[in-house]
């Protein structure tokens, strides 16, 4: 497993190093900052539960997909662009280790930034009079969403030279527009899956009703989310492995 660990370690360095770390950290805390600004603007006195709950939704529907998209697209996409992929494939290691290592590293990094955002959101929530009790639920839900997005976008980075553009198209068209028109497609929306799991895990005091509106008809459970996360990761890693076996494409 030395090679697998090495791929994960170097990919984490690749994705989370330098300016990227600053950029994604700032992006992750934007919902928390907005929450505080909006609360001040309303001259709130005490807990404005609906406002706080509503800001959890953009954290899931905007921040997590964007973070995972850019990181996932770069995990293998940067290797292709910089022509370093030969450094990986000309080794006595199975291709699945490369695909799985990339997906795992990307999941770890995007979940890390999401956890930072979740922490900031919870601190803002505490400032408004809420409790930190919502943190584990948001972290768990966002991690599931990050795993699904990361594994899918790592694959995307392996099949197109413009993963960010294609991924953005998916987020805007399928997840935002199409799922709004056809609620049955909600299963194809990772952030809804993560948010559904979060709602199930939230303490009873959290005003979940405001978020149910964001989810629509289908509210995935934690078990649904875990199955979706595991299945997506397995399928995308398998496809990515097959693509990496096509030597001429490297």
């Amino acid at each position, binding site marked *: 497993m*030395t090679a697998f660990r*090495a791929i994960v370690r170097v990919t984490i360095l690749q994705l989370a190093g330098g300016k990227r770390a600053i950029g994604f950290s700032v992006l992750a805390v934007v919902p928390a900052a907005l929450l505080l600004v909006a609360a001040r603007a309303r001259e709130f006195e005490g807990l404005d539960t609906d406002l706080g709950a509503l800001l959890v939704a953009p954290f899931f529907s905007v921040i997590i997909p964007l973070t995972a998209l850019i990181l996932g697209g770069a995990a293998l996409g940067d290797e292709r662009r910089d022509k370093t992929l*030969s*450094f990986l494939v*000309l080794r006595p290691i199975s291709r699945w280790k490369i695909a799985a290592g990339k997906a795992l590293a990307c999941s770890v990094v995007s979940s890390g930034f999401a956890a930072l955002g979740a922490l900031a959101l919870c601190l803002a929530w505490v400032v408004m009079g809420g409790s930190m009790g919502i943190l584990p639920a948001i972290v768990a839900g966002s991690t599931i969403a990050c795993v699904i997005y990361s594994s899918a976008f790592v694959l995307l980075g392996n099949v197109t030279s413009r993963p960010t553009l294609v991924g953005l198209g998916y987020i805007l068209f399928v997840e935002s527009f199409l799922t709004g028109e056809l609620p049955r497609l909600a299963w194809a929306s990772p952030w809804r899956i993560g948010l559904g799991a979060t709602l199930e895990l939230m303490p009873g005091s959290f005003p979940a009703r405001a978020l149910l509106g964001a989810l629509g008809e289908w509210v995935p459970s934690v078990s649904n989310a875990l199955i979706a996360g595991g299945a997506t990761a397995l399928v995308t890693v398998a496809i990515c492995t097959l693509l990496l076996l096509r*030597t001429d494409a490297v």
Partner: protein
Amino acid sequence: MNPTVEVRGVSKWFGTKVAVSDISCSFGPGITGLLGPNGAGKTTLLRMIAGLLRPSEGSIRVSGADPGRDTSVYRRMGFVPEDDAVYGFLSARGLVRYAAELSGSDSSSEAVDGALARVNLLEAADRPIEQYSKGMRQRAKVAAALVNDPLLLVLDEPLNGADPVQRAVLISIFQELAAEGRTVIVSSHVLAEVERMTDRVIAVLDGKLAAAGGIRAIRHAMIHIPHRVRIESDEPRRLATALLATPAVVGLHFKEGGFEVETSDLSALGTALPRVAYEASIRVTRFEPVDASLESVFRHLLRIRR
């Protein structure tokens, strides 16, 4: 002794473009220069040997195994691509360690430092590679290729971008590796560069094998193939008439204020011209071979092979 790499009837085409056409050759211990002008098919051939490309036709065996299917060949193979393909955010030490871990070889500090020392990169080993000069990057890539103690080293234009001092360092490293009994394949489009490393060459042109063997044959061909030379002087017609009596001159025609001579012996013409010009009191203002490139030599060799 069996060759380390055997290339049998290999062709490679991309759509309608034929990059390599029916090449058969072998590479054994020592340095072999893969020589040819840019676009000749060297990189495609090397990428097939490394297993990055699959031949459209024919077969390649590295230590008896198919590099496209059997990843175990990479345990003892090092590949240095032409592209600037390095992880700029890693240090050279990090890159070499990563290579060792991926290859399943010794990734201890001693092994990593040993590979870095071999390319004289120990002092700068902890700086990010993105801060390196082109030559230092090449050396970092070579160190990463050496860390798994390869029997076969495939180097695609490894001297590109390196300054003269770094070229000398890299060449001596390759020669040391070859002296240890490793098979080193070095591609280049510069004859003089290959000549400094080895006498054994495989020359390719337009995807075909133009020559295989000693570099002297190519040098000899460079002198003895028909050449065209442009000559300009204050009295071109009189000089041309005088030169026609020289045995080295095969043909001659006037062109834009001067004339072009076709010669079978470039050095003989070079010796005869000053004498003829002096005797006829004519001033020569220009003497320039029109087609003395390596490519023209390879084209000639290719014609001979046919």
